[in-house]
């Protein structure tokens, strides 16, 4: 039994630490002082992701409108993550220099044709939480991601 205790102590301690760490990280808000404290029941993750602006990858556009221009294989602005809340609407305007098909993962698997030169406007509402991609098919191009939280 001594052998098992030797093993169990660091394991149980570490397991307890990691669970505590995870719970603590979810109850907290981001480091910058200006943000208000969120009540425990509130999905803090969404607020977190919106306020922790430390990294370049999940970057700016938090507007409710997304304008994307596609020329050949070049997407402007460069693919990034748009954050919306559940129930919030996002209007997407896609302008392409060639005929293509817009596909939105999630959002009821939205598929709309895009005509060369004509902006296509679609409005989607966040329903399921997660990160969903908007893409074109001919050629396969990812336009941006929508993070619903």
């Amino acid at each position: 039994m001594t052998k098992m205790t030797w093993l169990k102590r660091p394991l149980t301690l570490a397991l307890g630490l990691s669970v505590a760490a995870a719970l603590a990280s979810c109850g907290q808000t981001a480091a910058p002082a200006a943000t208000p404290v969120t009540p425990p029941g509130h999905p803090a993750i969404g607020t977190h992701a919106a306020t922790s602006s430390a990294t370049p990858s999940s970057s700016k556009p938090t507007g409710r409108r997304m304008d994307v221009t596609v020329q050949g294989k070049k997407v402007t602005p460069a693919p990034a993550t748009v954050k919306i809340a559940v129930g919030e609407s996002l209007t997407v305007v896609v302008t392409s220099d060639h005929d293509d098909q817009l596909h939105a993962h999630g959002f009821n698997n939205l598929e709309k044709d895009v005509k060369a030169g004509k902006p296509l406007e679609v409005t989607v509402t966040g329903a399921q939480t997660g990160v969903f991609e908007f893409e074109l098919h001919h050629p396969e191009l990812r336009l941006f991601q929508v993070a619903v939280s």
Partner: protein
Amino acid sequence: MGTLGFAAVVASLPAHGVGSRQDLPLPFTAVLIGAAVALLVSFVALGALWPEPRLRADAGRPLPSPVARTLSSPVFRGVLVTLSLLLTAWTLVALIFGKDDANNPVPYVVYVWLWVGLAALSLVFGPVWAWLNPVRRLHLGVARLARLDPDASMTTRSPGYWPAALGLFAFTWLELIAPDRTTLFVLRVAIGTFVLIDLLGALVFGRGWFTRCDPFEVWSRLYGSLSPLYRRSDGKWVLRTPLHGANAVAVDKGLLATTSVMLGSTAYDGFSSEPRWYTFVQSSDLPSELLMTTGLLGMCLVVALSLHLAAAVSARLADIPVRGLAAQFAPSLLPIAAGYVVAHYWSLLTFEGQNTLIRLSDPLGIGANWLGTGGLTANHALLQPTLVAVVQVVAIVTGHVLGVVLAHERAVTLFQRRVAVIGQVPLLALMVGYTCGGLLLLFSS
């Protein structure tokens, strides 16, 4: 491009092959806290853990006899084998006769139930694929028909784990990079080729091929070594601390490659959804499959090379020969790989796993509902963002802790006592690197 149905399948091509959503990024505080815990535990482990090897092969608490008797009974095993063969047959029907559209269950069975579900089952129950593997049954049938001894090997040489390493790489390439990977044509070719090669390997090397060389059995066996459930060599079923199994993994050539592929491919999966990476891939003039394959291979090589480097430094510090040391350390990566797998694939398994069951009700795509699950919609309860974040952090940190303790055990087994502490520092540093890397991948996706 063919029919509308075909186009619809080609259209739904996210990272994993099936599924339309990915997880929200981890909050930065979670990353910090997770990394801090990992560092803290590593330093504590260095100072406070035992100086003598403690993991015994015969350790464990026996299960209550009714449970043990059930597990040992041939009827129970027969039931499991039959269920597995039924599911295989059902999937083959969908593969050969089904419709090539978004409702075909085959991509879901292959990319969700087989790949992730098997890992999850193995982590809990042990190397289950040894019982469930249908190719084993096929090989037995073929051997009986041809009046061959199924255990007979045509050569005394063994390929070690290499076929498994290559097979796992091929599968992850299929899962993450192959164009049109959810279409029936690609799946038919892939499954057919795999079964053929697996069967040939077993005919050439005997039934032992499955234990060391079948990619899915090795996947199940290596993750299964972390399971608390174990059948001892004397036949008794016991519950034991997960580390015993991982410490007893048979080291053979190709083990390092296999663990590198396991860890590297999950890391690449997380990395490939980074906006900067896929922007680079899709706007480059080089074919995207080439770039993505280089990325996948690169990640696996980074894992292998970093382990070699850590082993080389360890060997220098502990004054022992470096030959074979990296392979001896490779099993310590298994808990970390398991943590990565749980963190990355939790939502895929819990959500798309349900969608698999729903789609299996209509394998031929004729609007039938043979299992009664056809009308259901998948439940989102386990996708709640806070729950997902907690699962991810707990999985990665727990994997790290188990990896550190396991590395410590191996160090005190391999090194002399006076150098055991210093000898494990490079490996610990490597693991801290992997854990922080894993947390960062989840943060930046």
